[in-house]
């Protein structure tokens, strides 16, 4: 298939993912509101916001890095999509995942994060800095169990290629890693709570503490870009876990279903549990998840 077809498919996929991501965030906010006894926003609110933000023509900038922050962020999000095989067994939807494997994904997540951190930094707003420092600390903590889980899977399947991992889980539901390798699966899911960044691990944005944290100074187009990349990122993280643990997806419906469940698993946890302080969340990841991770790997060390 020629590169143009591929590009076409990719753009289409991106569009789907973007919208699905925005819908999910809308649903998320709705649920949170209802749990809080409020009515909540209409489902189309994110689109309105997005259009509004993109519509406003900003005239303000804190400088070049501030300017580049969203670019990094969006590139990171889209890149994640590009390097991730979204649907299994369909070359068209495998995007550019032939260019790199799991390691690429793991490290490319950080691309957007880093750029965002720097851009927000130049904004010079204390809240941004505070949010970022928390985010980095928490991410480092998440990294540990997450890596352990993923390594355990990689050992199990003796590969670092996501497509191969997915392929290995085909056939029956029982072939899913979550069943074939439950400990690693649980480890990853616990770490995923942090990765998704909902309460109790939402200290980074921490509404009503450091209002939305890093992006404090961003507005209009910048904010629009940030929102859309956020939406994409949410979906892509869900997709990652789907591919690793839940046998991937062979069509869009399956993909949407699975990502929805994965995503809302973290949302439900979020609405139940109050927010952790940073040292609490870090310490939390160093307890149960770490222990499970160690066990998961010990299983393969002998």
């Amino acid at each position: 298939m020629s590169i143009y077809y591929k590009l076409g498919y990719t753009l289409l996929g991106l569009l789907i993912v973007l919208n699905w991501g925005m819908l999910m965030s809308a649903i998320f906010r709705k649920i949170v509101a209802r749990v809080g006894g409020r009515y909540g926003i209409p489902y189309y609110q994110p689109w309105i916001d997005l259009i509004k933000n993109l519509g406003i023509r900003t005239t303000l900038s804190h400088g070049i890095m501030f300017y580049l922050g969203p670019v990094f962020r969006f590139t990171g999000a889209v890149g994640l999509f590009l390097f991730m095989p979204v649907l299994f067994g369909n070359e068209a939807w495998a995007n550019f995942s032939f260019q790199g494997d799991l390691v690429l994904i793991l490290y490319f997540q950080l691309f957007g994060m880093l750029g965002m951190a720097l851009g927000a930094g130049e904004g010079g707003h204390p809240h941004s800095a505070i949010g970022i420092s928390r985010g980095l600390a928490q991410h480092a903590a998440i990294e540990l169990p997450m890596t352990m889980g993923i390594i355990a899977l990689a050992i199990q399947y003796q590969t670092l290629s996501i497509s191969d991992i997915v392929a290995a889980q085909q056939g029956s539901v029982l072939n899913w890693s979550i069943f074939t390798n439950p400990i690693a699966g649980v480890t990853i899911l616990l770490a995923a709570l942090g990765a998704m960044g909902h309460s109790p691990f939402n200290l980074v944005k921490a509404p009503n503490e450091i209002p939305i944290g890093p992006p404090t100074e961003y507005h209009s187009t910048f904010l629009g870009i940030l929102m859309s990349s956020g939406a994409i990122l949410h979906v892509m993280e869900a997709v990652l876990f789907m591919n690793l643990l839940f046998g991937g997806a062979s069509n869009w419906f399956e993909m949407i279903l699975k990502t929805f469940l994965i995503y809302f698993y973290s949302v439900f946890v979020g609405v139940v549990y109050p927010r952790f302080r940073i040292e609490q969340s870090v310490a939390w990841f160093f307890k149960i998840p770490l222990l499970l991770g160690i066990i998961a790997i010990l299983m393969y060390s002998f």
Partner: protein
Amino acid sequence: MVTPIYIVATGLGVGFAIGILKKFGKNFTGALVLAALAFMTFISFQWFYGLHYGSEVATYVYTAGFKPPFSINLLMGQYESIASLMINAIGLLGGIYMFNSLKARGSDAQVVYLILIMAMNVLVMTRDIFNLFVFLEIVSIAIAGVILLEKSDRSMSAGFKYILASGIISTILLLGIVFAYYLTGTLNIDDFVGISLNTYKGGGLVIFLMMMAAILELKPFPANGWGLDLYEGADPGISAIISGASATASLFVLYKIMAFAGAEWNYYVALIGIITFVGSNFFGIVQENTRRMLGYSSIGQIGLLMVVLGFKDVLGDSTPFILFGLLISHYLAKAGLFWLSGIIKAKDLKEWSVIRKHPYFLFLMGTFVFALIGFPPFPSFFSKFNFVLLLTETGNIAWVIAILAGSMLEAIYLFRWFGYAVKSENSHIEKNKVCLHKSIPIWIMALALYGFSYYTSLSNPWSIAINFIPLAFVALLFVLDFLPVYIKNSLSILGMAYYFYLVYPQLDNMRLIFEVIFIVGGILTLIAGFAYKGTRPGFHAVALLMFAGLTAIIEAKTTLEFFFGWELMTAGSYFLIIRGKRSMTHALSYMMFSIGGAYALLAAFGISNVGQINLDLNQIGHISYLSTWAYALLILGFLTKTASVGLHIWLPGAHGEAESDVSPMVSAILLKAGVFGLVLTLIAMNGSDSQWSNLAYALGWLGAITALSGNLMAVFQEDAKRLLAYSSIGQLGYIVFALAMMTHLGWLTAFTYSINHFMYKAILFLTIGAVVLRVGTHDMYKMGGLIARMPMAFIAVLIGIIALSGVPPLSGFAGKWLFYNAVMEKGWYFQGIIIFFSGGLAFLYLWRLIHTIFLGQLKDNHRNVKDISIWFAIPVYILIGGIMVFSVRPDWVLQPLGNMLSPFFPTGQLNWDHSYAYTTLGYWSGTNVFITIVILFLIVFGILALSTRKAHKLKQFDITYSGEKPFRPETTHVAWNVFAGFYKAVWPATIPLVAKFWDYVTDFFHDGAGFTRRIYSGNGQAYMMHILYFIIITYIVIIGG
């Protein structure tokens, strides 16, 4: 050829004659004495020359016209000529040095001095044991007299104690002599050698008495309190004579008596020697008084020489080389130091900082100190090397350990002293005035030292191969030190470039990589040096010294050359590090770890030669005896340079406090020397048939823990350069870990990391250093918002941290990707996970680095700082270019690396399909990923640019914070202790256990020495008791036992 008897005749004749001539005034008599000494020196020199070049043969001088044993005869042989030349030469120079102090005491003092020197000559030459005793007495009395040149109660009581001690010793000696005569009926030493005394009834006892006297003359530990008081109490000039000439003479006496004492004494001499060496150096570390400290050092050195004498049968033909190498270094260096201590009137070590007011003296002091410790190119270096090798060859490993331990102790206090001299506060001390006649002898000693260094290196069959061109270049730079920076800098760069051009054809790929890192890296960092004004005294010479050492270890074919280069590199880097503002203590600990490591290497090289001497560097690939230990020692030695956890405590301070362009030299470049060493060792280990898997496993864990602790500590630094220093520790941890995996992928990772770390750490250190030069502080929280003032620096740091963090698309990711594959393949999951976690931590400190310095709020006092100096920017951007190339075409680097490694690790290579790299586990195309990401980036950027093209820059405080507009950067810039929350979670892991441990060790030694040295109560009777007990205990050990 003037017969040596004229040495005596001149000495005594002039001495007696002065009684009449004194009315011509003290200057005249003084000149006369000097003339006599000059003549004596001339005589012994011509004999030395004649005997050394074979135009003369060893000659007996008969007195009274009768042949021995009926009359006394003297012998002038080769060793005699050397010894007497040494004695007379130092006598002459000392006479010049002390001209005034002798004059002040009148012609009588001058006479005593002259006769002292004369008598020592006779001690060396005489072959009659009783005559030996007579002149020994003359020497003792004369020394007791010259002590009094210094008019003080201290010197007086020191002299008295000395007389008491020597009185006891001579009593013992006399008893031995007369009984020897009683038994054998002769007093002639040659006869003793002929007829073995031991065969006589009671002969052993007689020998014992004579040996005791001879050994006690050498001030053996601990029966040497009187000797220490002597060194401390006497005029420095006299101390120089005692430590130079009298020690030489006494050593010769011992040598003569050992000739007929019988072989069983060798062991005991060596034993007493090693006890003296270690013991007195142990006490030396707590000395605050310079002269006493030098005294301890002298006694220690003589102890070492006793060890050599004791092993003379083992060492065989190389005994003279080793003995005289050590003796001459000690003789020249110690004389020079004592004389210096006479000019620099500083009793307390700390006050030596005043020497900085005489830069040339500082240079001399450095020369002497390094010669004492046995650094190249000084004779002691070659002697120690040969000594250790020959000892290990014959399996005396315990002795080697003891010797190295003693040298280590000596290094501790000498370098502490030197550190004070170079660094400690000196504004409150006023400069001493220097008279020419005092400084000339010191210069002569130093020049002689260098001369002998060259001569020894030639005369030592093993060291001929050593390449002295770089050293010569360094020497040239020392000479040209007065020139301004830009000349010296250009010169150095040209020199290094040309040298690189010379050597690179001879190097295989692996060595070439390191040579490039060392030399090209060196050139790049030197370019930054153009930013400095003035002459920058001493910098270029020592920097080039380090690079000379680095290239020497690359080119080394033999262990000797390697060790030579290693020590040069250590010396150079030490000087570079100690140049930093507050780096006295750090430089010291750096030196201690380096020397410890160097000695570990030396011991390992020795072990690799057990059984047969084979200097070929590949010999470490075929270690048969104790191979695991040898490899452990080698690895340990190299880990001190890679600053692995446990041996790392020197690094943060040393790198953090160093000058802006020195930090990259010692961080990005120097650390790779340790890596190179590890690479050599592991290759050898891999090829050898020893059981190394456990060793590698331990090394792997060590690397992982190093990576973790290094990065973790880096997270909590407030000082930018220390942050980078800790990050270096972490990065080196990765490399060590990767090497320890001992697989193809592992080594590929290691080399990738080495190259990457060289590039981005150079970028970061250079840029941060340049920023520090502009803003004048290391503390990040004092900076902020600098992106507005120095965009060039910001971009550099941005690229640097992206590369370091390993985020795609930059080259850092290549390392990470390889790492995952290597770890998975090797199966070291836990270590691997620790490594990856450390990689995560890297983000924390990298973000902090760039954020607190360049982002956030600009401080008022930085509102108009300029961007970093262009001279720093040039190398930085060249390196950025390098990173970019590596990022776009990783295959250009990785493929050759792979080919290079396949001979060592044939299995498990990377497979390449165009730009795609495949392992059994994963795949990755650096080029394509780079292209994809860049395109994506540009598209998004374009869209944003279109939509926000009218955007204008806001002012600094155009933000609202807690409902109002801030106006102080300090209150708005989140910079101090930003990871407080994280710290609350992980603080237990940040306790500096290692530092605590080393502090404990230091205290232990310090207190131990401080307590035990109290046996030197300063009471004359106690000292005599020590002597008598020394005799009795030795008696019990040797005869009674």
